[in-house]
């Protein structure tokens, strides 16, 4: 039941969990009916234009030590059909004015970083998928997957299951070489009722379950016809650490200028 999907044209929900683009990839052929059923379900949670969110990350170490960071995340699909996302950090205090820009491409996304030390935005290259992102349990890959950015791979649908006593669709993605993934398999569990991803299991080579990303079903809420989970948890099972994610102040289809997502705009205060 493996197949390839075509490039995603539609914007994919930021908050619906693992994106359709991540699941099906740009160069993949049309999915079969079983996978398409899940995809259509997930597309119900995709905003038509853009989103603006405040997200808090609480990275907790093995002894309970916490590092809190907050970022305002702007996301938009531009006319070229590719998604862009900008993180503007507001906390910790010393992090203000730092920005991260992610631009979707046919292969892995391009990432740009701006901090006052860099003096100008710089493209971040060569990062292996496994490195951690600003001290949380997310790797660049985890973060990009969560945000719905393209990661080529082959997807199949497994028999339905249950997560937190809720019936879920089960999709299994094997990232392709082009994805330069740290994982050999990513399993997503999509809530049949709300079409929100409730759980993502990421397996390292040799079948070791490394990370589990879960959405708290109690935090599911509907905003402008879109279902989202506002409380999420990323657990690194090998390192014994975790990161709590709290989504606040969702704005759907706000009018955002394209220039906000240009590299040259990085470091400027205006939205």
């Amino acid at each position, binding site marked *: 039941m493996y197949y390839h999907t075509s490039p995603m044209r539609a914007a994919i929900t930021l908050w619906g969990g693992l994106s359709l683009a991540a699941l099906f990839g740009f160069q993949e052929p049309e999915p079969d009916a079983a996978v398409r059923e899940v995809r259509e379900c997930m597309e119900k949670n995709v905003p038509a234009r853009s989103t603006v969110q405040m997200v808090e990350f609480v990275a907790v*170490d*093995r002894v309970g030590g916490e590092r809190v960071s907050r970022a305002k995340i702007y996301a938009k699909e531009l006319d070229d059909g590719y998604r862009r996302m900008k993180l503007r950090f507001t906390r910790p205090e010393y992090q203000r004015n*730092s920005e991260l820009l992610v631009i979707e491409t046919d292969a892995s996304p391009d990432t740009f970083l701006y901090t006052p*030390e860099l003096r100008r935005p710089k493209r971040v*290259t060569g990062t292996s998928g496994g490195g951690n992102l600003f001290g949380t349990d997310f790797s660049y890959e985890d973060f990009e997957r969560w945000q719905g950015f393209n990661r080529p791979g082959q997807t199949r649908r497994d028999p339905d299951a249950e997560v937190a006593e809720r019936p879920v669709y089960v999709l299994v993605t094997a990232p392709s070489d082009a994805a330069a993934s740290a994982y050999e398999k990513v399993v997503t569990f999509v809530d049949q009722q709300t079409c929100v991803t409730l759980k993502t299991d990421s397996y390292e080579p040799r079948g070791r379950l490394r990370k589990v990303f879960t959405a708290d079903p109690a935090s599911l809420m509907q905003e402008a016809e879109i279902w989202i989970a506002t409380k999420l948890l990323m657990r690194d099972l090998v390192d014994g650490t975790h990161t709590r994610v709290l989504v606040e102040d969702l704005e759907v289809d706000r009018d955002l200028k394209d220039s906000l997502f240009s590299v040259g705009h990085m470091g400027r205060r205006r939205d």
Partner: protein
Amino acid sequence: MDPILGFISKRPWIVLALLSLVTLGAIARLIDFDRLREQGLARSFRLEIDMSTNRLLPEDDEDKLFYDFVRKVFGSDETLLVALHAQDIFTEENLTRVSRLTTRLEDVEGVHHVVSLTNALNIRGTEDSLDIRPLVSEIPEDPEELARIRAEALENPLYSGSLISTDGRTTSLLVYFLDFSDREFIERGIDEQIQTIALEEAGDAEVWLSGGPHLKVAQIQTQLRGLTRMLPLILGVLGLVLAFSFRTIRGVVLPLITIVMSLVWSMGAAAMIGRPLNLVTILIPPLLLILGLSYSVHVVSQFYDTLRERPGDTSAEATHRALRLVWLPVALTGFTTAAGFLALALSPMGAIREFGVLSVVGVLLTVLASLTAPPALLSVMGKPRRIREVSGDGPFERFVARVAQFDLERRRTILLAAAAVFVVSVGALPFIKIGSNSIENFPRESSVRTDFEAINRHLGGANSFNVVLQGAEPDTFIEPVNLRAVEELQQWLVMQPEIGGTTSVVDYLKLINRGFHDNDPAYLAVPDSKRAAGRLLFFGSSDDLDGFVDRTYRLANLTVRANIVDHELFRGLIERIEDRLADLEPMLSGKVTGNPVLLNRLSDDIVKGQAYSLVGALVLIYVILLLMFLDYRTGLIALVPNVLPVVVYFGALGLTGVTLNFATSLIAPMALGIAIDDTIHYFTRFNHDAKRFADERRGTISALRAVGRPVTYTSIAICTGFLVLMTSELRNQVQLGALGAFTLGFAWFVDFTLTPALCSGLRVVTLWDTLTLDLGEEPQNSIPLFNGLSKTQCRIVALMASMHEVRKGHRLIREGDAGRHMYVVIDGAFKITTRGEHGAIDLGTAERGAVLGEVGLFYGTASANVDVVEDARLLRLTQKNMARLSRRYPRIAARVLANLNETLAGRLWRTTGRLKT
């Protein structure tokens, strides 16, 4: 007790069936039969082995708790290090080799990840990009490119000196593992797989392996190899000693079956408790075999003695009789040995406490097995066709008698010599070195040690530990002032000759800073502002960085690589670092930690544990002696011949330079518990013989003749057993074997010299005597001399004197004879007469309670004749006895003298009355 003993000898099949059931139960506990079918015997033992030095550390120790906390925050420091040494690592061939090796090692099941030159991340900044990729991401053929990579690697403060030696000839691959037990690590054969892969990929480069997991596997394998060689060897040696002493097949086989069975029980009990064998408890199997033999030997030996005395007895009768005689001394000596081990449970070190408890269980089970298995088997096997006659006056006994004579004649010399040995030994105590070192435990030529030393030489230090700095509040380690304090501390550390390199969050920060500033070398520095430092660490964070700073930036971890392993030098280094940490900014505090640091600090715990267990053993054994001899002075005297070998053992440590480590610290309490057995045997026999002959000097010689042979045989068995431990490849076991044999050999020598010399002026009263001495009913009421005393006090008086049996018709006292003694009639009847002008004048009769010959006691000459008219038992009291009684039991003596005065006064009153009439 007698019904139980009777059951064992008369229902041997039931006993053997029960023993078999228990043994099968223990085997079932010990062996997983499902695994046995699939994986063979070696892998089916349920007993786990945990060789981590962590097990040696006290569980509630502040330093250990801090170390556990540090490991939890920064991740485990248990890495295996594979080093490749070649003419130049930066050739296409060698870098390809490192890359292939990295990939293959990462493919080994159980490996978490591998860090090497070909995957360690490096940050490079250019005008437009920030490139974060491995140090050697692609292996070039071009020599110029290779030279560039070489230069880049060697100037990288994170990796130069650790991942690559400063001369570019040695590179290391750090292998991190998933979290699983030592047993799993061994069963999966991870260490072997890594060794094989490393050797296959090495080509013409040299390969060295080191690191905690590798050392642990080497330690476990060496221990298991040693055990599989030593256990049969010990059984063989003990078999030879048994063959020499018994010269019968059952004399050899029965004790060996018993100790093997006890060992199975003990290990089954250990498996049941569920505690893995550790560095110390793994010594229990050979020690139990060595120490457990004597109990069954006594039982078998007594069986033969009984049959020699009563050849007509059936085997069941002989077994029963032998058990009755032997159960108490066997149980008692078992308790004293167990007491020695029990004292080890006072040690603050968990592994030694477990050793103490498991050994106590082992010894008690061995006693139980010895009192059941050999008697039951002897009873079933029937009487031997021929019993070898043992001459009580052979060359050995004659030699022993001469030694005893010498001891008596040179008593003062022996006591002075013992005092001199004691003083010399005490004088050597300050020279005792303390400490354990897992590397130096391996033979000098072993690959474990040579690899460690090679890595130490080429990579600036293989002995890695941590300095952990703590700030007063979160974000401490993004403040430039604190980051510079870390930098200065690192600079100070690398100036120490024992330190090869350090790594900290500052090294990472500087590299990130340089990368963010287009690789400008000027930015290889701590940023000037907290904002900048925070941002750099925020965006430059990685799994590797998590090992050096916690998520709140309050804790910083410096890894330090030392090139020394010597205990004293390492301790000196730690102390210097601690002094330096005391000079840190007031907002910062620092602690030195890590596995080698905790092991080094174990020395204090070893000393504390040794003191606790020695005092504990002495107190426990003294209490047992006090209960036995009912006299504090006799207890103390009995303790002397056992304390001396222990003091000499410590003196030997001081003089030979052998360290007091976790293995050698077992010797003193263990030796105390074992040596006391011989003393008890000797004192008990001496007590018996001194009373029998009414002469302590004769008793001294006779007792040594009686116990000399068994004491010597058991000492030979134990000492040779300990000597077998010297065949071990591990140095601490060799030391344990040599020093154990030396200490117990010396204890045997003391038993033959000092113990008789001390005993010769002693009258011993044992608890057993006081419990069993028959003075008839209510002696305190029926014998006037004992008026006002308790039953036990009556027996003490009797035991300080001597009991005599006389036959009817015998003249006990002849008028006019000299004699400084008197008699108390226990039972029987006497006629008292004196010479008159017209023949004998009848002065009356004497029965139970009467005092006879009291005039002789005071005036030296008997005033009447006393004849036995009915078989009788008498208590003979001399002036010497009375003096000893006054000294040792003054209250009892005062009562007896008052009673005697009353008796004499009554007699005077009656005589006066008779004269009046």
